[in-house]
């Protein structure tokens, strides 16, 4: 039973203090092996690789994996629930406050200042994913991965064909996975 309490304490803390999403949880996950024997630091690297290759938010995947290593399926559930509980509470409070002030000109003008910034922040995510997916060789050196780059360009062009705009993004991912396997990308 104690392991569940420990999982709750560890992951509630991560949920409460990791600001900046999934990547921000990694340093916390790296600290856990100092206090518990659930997994080793080296395991975190494999957990991250699996989390990036499976659907779902990376932070949630990591928490499920770490919790599972500690105490099986119930451990994964406890870790994940503990991780999202602070978000639920904080976001509900923030949403309540913002609702009250949603017509306030200061709040509205603050958000009009923030929206272009968020576009810039999304652009950083685009930059990073381009770098890792198209321009980094297996050994970590810079290299243009031609099959990936070609696939990306073709898909981008197809996505902007008027008739194909409504296609569910998952369809493109299935196509990309198939292309990856066929061309051994």
């Amino acid at each position, binding site marked *: 039973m104690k392991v569940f309490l420990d999982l709750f304490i560890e992951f509630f803390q991560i949920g409460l203090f990791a600001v900046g999403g*999934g990547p921000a949880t990694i340093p916390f996950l790296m600290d856990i092996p100092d206090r518990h024997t659930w997994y080793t630091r080296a395991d975190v690297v494999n957990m991250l690789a699996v989390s990036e290759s499976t*659907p779902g938010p*990376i932070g949630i995947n990591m928490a499920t994996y770490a919790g599972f290593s500690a105490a099986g399926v119930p451990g994964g559930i406890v870790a994940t629930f503990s991780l*999202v509980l602070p978000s*639920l509470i904080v976001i509900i409070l923030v*949403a309540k406050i913002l609702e009250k002030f949603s017509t306030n000109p200061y709040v509205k003008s603050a958000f009009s200042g923030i929206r272009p910034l968020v*576009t810039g922040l999304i652009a950083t995510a685009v930059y990073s994913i381009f770098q890792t*997916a198209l321009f980094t060789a297996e050994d970590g050196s810079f290299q243009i991965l031609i099959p990936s780059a070609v696939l990306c360009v073709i898909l981008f062009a197809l996505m902007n064909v008027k008739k194909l705009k409504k296609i569910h993004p998952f369809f493109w991912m299935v196509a*990309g996975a198939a292309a990856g396997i066929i061309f051994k990308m």
Partner: protein
Amino acid sequence: MKELIQLYLAFFRIGGLTFGGGLTMLPMLKHELVEKKGWVTEDDLLDYYAVGQCTPGIIAVNVSTFVGYKRKGIPGAVFSTLGMISPSLVIISVIAAFLKQFMDYPAVVHATAGIKAVVCALMLNTVITMGKKTLVNRISVFICIAGFLLAMFTPVPSVLLVIVSGLTGIILYKAGKLQP
């Protein structure tokens, strides 16, 4: 109850069908919530992301909680969040239990490389649409580029960038240069 289940299912699909973290989920959120359901606008999504960046926790979860709360209050927030995390719980548990060597299968590595190329194209598409909507004048272009450079090449935390650009918005409004 019906709408709560709809929320759960919508976020289950988003969580179960996207690869990568919070920001790479944006194309899927846009498709499901803006285009298909019409529950939120693109501006709303950007606002939720802004809040999700500054508040603790996983950004994808923060955004789902926010959308769920807006639709159906606290129960909506709970159902959306549960929907978002359910696929991960199932998939990761199966892999951790039976496929410990998951990353050693060449097919997984190749498929992942292909999916990443797709995510590149999807994200590029999304950032262009968002740019067209949000970069409406010189100041907004400046905020976007400055934010990109600072977040990319300096250790300035994005929370601070959100606060500064929010204040910029307020100052511009005060100076009469912005209509909120």
